[in-house]
C-alpha cells in the first residue's frame, strides 16, 4: 500500500505526461506481481464491488470526525469526491501501513460478507491507522473509480516500458473481462492466452473533432463521409456461435441489448463490427433521450423492448472470416462489410449499414452536414479511404465534423456553488425561458461551464448581492442577466418542466447587451425540435 499510495502521490504532484509515465514505469518495475495486477485493474477502472454503501460510509466517517452529518455533506459537496472528503475530515495520522495493496483488496472483497458492525469496525480501524494519502487511496478503493489524470493509454505505455511488450498488444491483453483477484500477473500480461480470445474486442479507434476547414484535409476523393450517429459506440463480436457487445468504455454490455442475440445465426462466425447502437422507436431513429431509458438497465423488460427497441448501425469491419483485418485500408474493409451485410439476411435482424455519402466536392459534404439534424445525426464523420484501423485517439485519418450547436438566449434564475477551486463561487447556474402566456420564466437547463474565471467572479459577486431566496445550497436570483446557451441536441421530454430536454447545455457567452425581455421563449425552444 505504501508503494501504491506513494505512486498516487507522485502522479498527483505533476501534470507532465513524461513524469507520470516515469512514475508508473518505476512502480511496475518494483511492485510485487499481485499488486501490479491490482494497480492495472484500478487504473483501468476495474474495482471490486463496493462492500459498503455510501450512506453508511458517510455516517461512519462523520462519526469518527465528530461533526454533524450535514457538515459532512456540505464538505462533500465542496470537495466533490467522497474518498477525498473522508481522508480530509478524519483526524490526521502520521502512521503508515505495511499491508500490501493486494492484502487490502482481499480484505475489501471479504468485507462484503461481514455485518455492518464488523464493517464499521474495520473501516474505523484502518482510517485511523493510515496517513492522509493512504487513507485517501484506501477510501478510493472502497468507493469507486480512480480519476487521477492517468488514462488507460498512459498506463499501458508505462507497462510497455516496464515489460518491453508492444503497447498495442498490451492494450489488447487488458481488454475484456478479467478478474484481478483470480488472475496472476504472468497470466494477464506475460503469457499468450488463447482461451481469452473469444470475447476480446479490439481497442477502439477514436476520431478527433475537425477544427479547421474541411478543404484543408486535401483531395475530397481520398475521403469517405457518413453521418455521425448519436448513440453508443460499440463493437459487436460473433465468434463460435456466441455474441459479445462491447461499449467504448470497454464494458461488456451484451445483456442490455437482447435484440442482438438474433445476430448469432445470421452474421457469420469470426466477425467483429464497429458501429453505433441507436434507439429505433416507431421504426425510425430516435433521440439520445430515448436511448437513456435503455442505458441504465441491466435487464430489459418486454414493454421497454417494444417501446424502445435498438438497432446497430455498422460502419467498419475489424475481423472477417476470423482474421484481424485492421491493417487493410478502410476502402477494403468497407467493401467487405457491405458485401457481408448484403449476403446475410439482414432484413430479419436489427442490423443496418451506415451508408456512405455520395459527393464530389467538400461543398457537397458541407451541405449534407447542414442536413444532419434531419437525419438524427450529430454531423459528418470523415474517414480517409486508405487508412488502417488504428488504436486509440490518433490524429489524421478520422475526423468528426459536428454540426454547429443550437443556441438560445436564456435568463439566469438560480445559482449554486461550484466544486473544488470554484467552491467559493456561485458557478452552477440554472436558466429559464419565457412562458409567454403566463409571463413567467420556466427552467429549461443547467450549465456550469463556458465563462472565463473573471466572468464567473463577476457573476458570483452579482449573485451574492441579488439573492432572492435561499434553498440549502441553491439561491434564486433577480432575473436580470441573459446568457446565450448552446446545446448539442434537443428532444421532447415529460420529465422536464419545460417539456424539453437538451443535450450538453453550456454557456456560450454572456449577453450583457440584452435585457431579460429579449430572452427567448419556450416556444422558440420547441421550434428547434427536429
Amino acid at each position, binding site marked *: 500500500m505504501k508503494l501504491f499510495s506513494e505512486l498516487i502521490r507522485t502522479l*498527483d*504532484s*505533476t*501534470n*507532465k505526461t513524461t513524469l507520470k509515465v516515469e512514475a508508473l514505469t518505476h512502480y511496475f518495475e518494483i511492485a510485487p506481481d499481485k499488486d501490479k495486477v491490482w494497480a492495472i485493474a484500478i487504473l483501468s477502472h476495474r474495482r471490486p464491488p463496493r462492500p459498503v454503501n455510501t450512506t453508511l460510509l458517510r455516517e461512519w466517517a462523520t462519526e469518527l*470526525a465528530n*461533526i*454533524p452529518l*450535514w*457538515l459532512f455533506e*456540505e*464538505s462533500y459537496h*465542496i*470537495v*466533490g*469526491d467522497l474518498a*477525498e*472528503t473522508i481522508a*480530509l*475530515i478524519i483526524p*490526521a495520522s502520521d502512521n503508515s501501513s505495511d499491508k500490501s495493496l493486494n492484502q487490502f483488496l482481499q480484505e475489501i472483497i471479504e468485507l462484503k460478507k461481514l455485518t455492518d458492525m464488523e464493517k464499521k469496525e474495520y473501516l474505523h480501524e484502518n482510517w485511523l491507522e493510515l496517513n492522509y494519502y493512504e487513507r485517501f487511496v484506501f477510501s478510493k478503493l472502497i468507493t469507486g473509480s480512480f480519476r487521477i*489524470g492517468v488514462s488507460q493509454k498512459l498506463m499501458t505505455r508505462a507497462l510497455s516500458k516496464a515489460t518491453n511488450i508492444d503497447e498495442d498488444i498490451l492494450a489488447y491483453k487488458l481488454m475484456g473481462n478479467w478478474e484481478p483477484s483470480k488472475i496472476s500477473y504472468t497470466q494477464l500480461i506475460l503469457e499468450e492466452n488463447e482461451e481469452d480470445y473469444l470475447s476480446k474486442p479490439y481497442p477502439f479507434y477514436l476520431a478527433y473533432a475537425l477544427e479547421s476547414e474541411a478543404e484543408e484535409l486535401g483531395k475530397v476523393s481520398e475521403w469517405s463521409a457518413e453521418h455521425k450517429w448519436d448513440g453508443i459506440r460499440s463493437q459487436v463480436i460473433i465468434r463460435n456461435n456466441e455474441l459479445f457487445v462491447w461499449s467504448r468504455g470497454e464494458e461488456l454490455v451484451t445483456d442490455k441489448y437482447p435484440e442482438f442475440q438474433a445476430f448469432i445465426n445470421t452474421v457469420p462466425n469470426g466477425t467483429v463490427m464497429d458501429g453505433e447502437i441507436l434507439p429505433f422507436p416507431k421504426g425510425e431513429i430516435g433521440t439520445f433521450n430515448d436511448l437513456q431509458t435503455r442505458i441504465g438497465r441491466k435487464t430489459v423488460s418486454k414493454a421497454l423492448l417494444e417501446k424502445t427497441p435498438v438497432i446497430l448501425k455498422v460502419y467498419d469491419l475489424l475481423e472477417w472470416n476470423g482474421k484481424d483485418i485492421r491493417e487493410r485500408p478502410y476502402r477494403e474493409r468497407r467493401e467487405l462489410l457491405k458485401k457481408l451485410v448484403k449476403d446475410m439476411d439482414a432484413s430479419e435482424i436489427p442490423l443496418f449499414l451506415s451508408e456512405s455519402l455520395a459527393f464530389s466536392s467538400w461543398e457537397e459534404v458541407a451541405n449534407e452536414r447542414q442536413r444532419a439534424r434531419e437525419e438524427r445525426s450529430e454531423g459528418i464523420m470523415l474517414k480517409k479511404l486508405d487508412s488502417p484501423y488504428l488504436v486509440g485517439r490518433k490524429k489524421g485519418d478520422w475526423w468528426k465534423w459536428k454540426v454547429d450547436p443550437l443556441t438560445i438566449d436564456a435568463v439566469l434564475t438560480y445559482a449554486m456553488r461550484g*466544486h*473544488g*477551486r470554484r*467552491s*467559493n*463561487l456561485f458557478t452552477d447556474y440554472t436558466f429559464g425561458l419565457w412562458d409567454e402566456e403566463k409571463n413567467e420564466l420556466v427552467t429549461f437547463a443547467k450549465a456550469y461551464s463556458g465563462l472565463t474565471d*473573471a466572468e464567473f*467572479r*463577476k457573476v458570483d*459577486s*452579482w449573485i*451574492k*448581492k441579488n439573492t432572492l431566496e*435561499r434553498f440549502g445550497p441553491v439561491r434564486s436570483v433577480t432575473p*436580470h*442577466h441573459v446568457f446565450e446557451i448552446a446545446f448539442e441536441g434537443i428532444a421532447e421530454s415529460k420529465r422536464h418542466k419545460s417539456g424539453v430536454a437538451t443535450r450538453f447545455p453550456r454557456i456560450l457567452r454572456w449577453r*450583457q447587451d440584452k435585457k431579460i425581455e429579449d430572452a427567448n421563449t419556450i416556444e422558440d425552444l420547441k421550434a428547434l425540435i427536429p
Partner: protein
Amino acid sequence: MNTPLLVFNEKGIYCEKAKVYLDPWKPVDHAIISHGHADHSRWGHKKYITHHSNVPIIKHRLGEIIVTGKEWNETFTINGVKFSLHPAGHIIGSSQIRVEYKGEVWVFTGDYKMEDDGVAVPYESVKCHSFITECTFGLPAFKWVPQEQVMTDVNNWWQQNREDGRTSVLFGYSLGKAQRLLKYLDPSIGKIYTHGAIENMTEVLRPQLSMPETIRITRDTKKEELKGSMVLAPPSAQGTPWIRKMVPFVTASASGWMTFRGARRRRAIDKGFVLSDHCDWQGLLQAIEGTGCEKVICTHGYTEIFSRFLREKGYDARTEETQYEGEIGELEAKSEIEKDLEIVKKTPESL
C-alpha cells in the same frame, strides 16, 4: 432598539457613531484598514488609518493617500468611540480592529491566522461581545500542517528539481505569501529569482523583515542562469509568455486551496503546497472561543456553513455579505481589482 455599533451597508462595515468605515469597498471619507490586500484596502477614500507597519504597503499599492499609522493597542477616540488595532497574524501589518462604545466591544478580524509564522506579529486574542470574522477556510476539511514541515517540503522539492535540471517556479501572491516563502527558502540550494511584482513589494518590506537575497528577472536575465534556480512569481504569471524563459521548469503553488487535489489539477500546476495565511477550521473555532464572544458575524468564505455550525454550538451567529474575497481576492493583481471598480462606476445596475 438602538442601531448596532457596527452595521453592514453598501459601502462597507460602518460605525455610525464615529462616521467611520472598516475596510470599506467603496470610496468613503474615513476608513480604518485592517491590512494591505486589495480586497481590504481599496483606492479612493479621503483618509486612511492603519497600523504603521502597513503604511508603506498601502502607500506602495495606492500611491499618494492621506494615511495615519497607529501602534498596536494604541487607543484613539473618534466621536466618543474607542478604536484600537491588534495583531492578526495574517501578513505584515495586519490588524484586527477593536471598537468600543459605552462598554460594548466589537472586534473585526480582517484576515487572520493562529500560527506564528515568524513574519507577521502573531495573532492576539481580544475579548469582545461581537466578533466579526472571516472564514475563508471554514470547513472541517481544512487542516494546516506546521509551517516548518511545509517549508522543508518546499526546499526538498527545489533541491530535487535542481538535481533534475529544472527550474522551480513557485506561485504565491506578491504581498504576504511571497515574503513568507522567501524568508524560509534555503539559499544554500541555489539562487532565488523574483517576478517584478514580487520584487517591488519585497523591497518595500525589507526594512521590516530579514529575507534572503533575491534577483529581479528582467529582459536581460539569461535563460541559462535560471536553470535549477527558484523563481517566485505571482499566480497571474502562470501561462504567460514571461514564464517561457524558465523552460525546463516545474510549477508549484502555495495556498490553502491546495488542500483539494482538484484545485491543483484544474489550475494545471504540478505541485501543491498547503500553506495559508488564514485560519483553518480548528483555528477559527479556537479564535472564537478565545474572544469569549456571544455574537459572531461571518464575512467571507464558507460563511453560511460556518455560521450554521456556530449556531448549533450555541452562538448567535449570522452571515453578512461583503466584498472581501479570501485567498481568491489576494490573488488578484491590483490593476484587475481596479478594472472591476471601473465597471461598477459605469453600470451600477448590472454589477
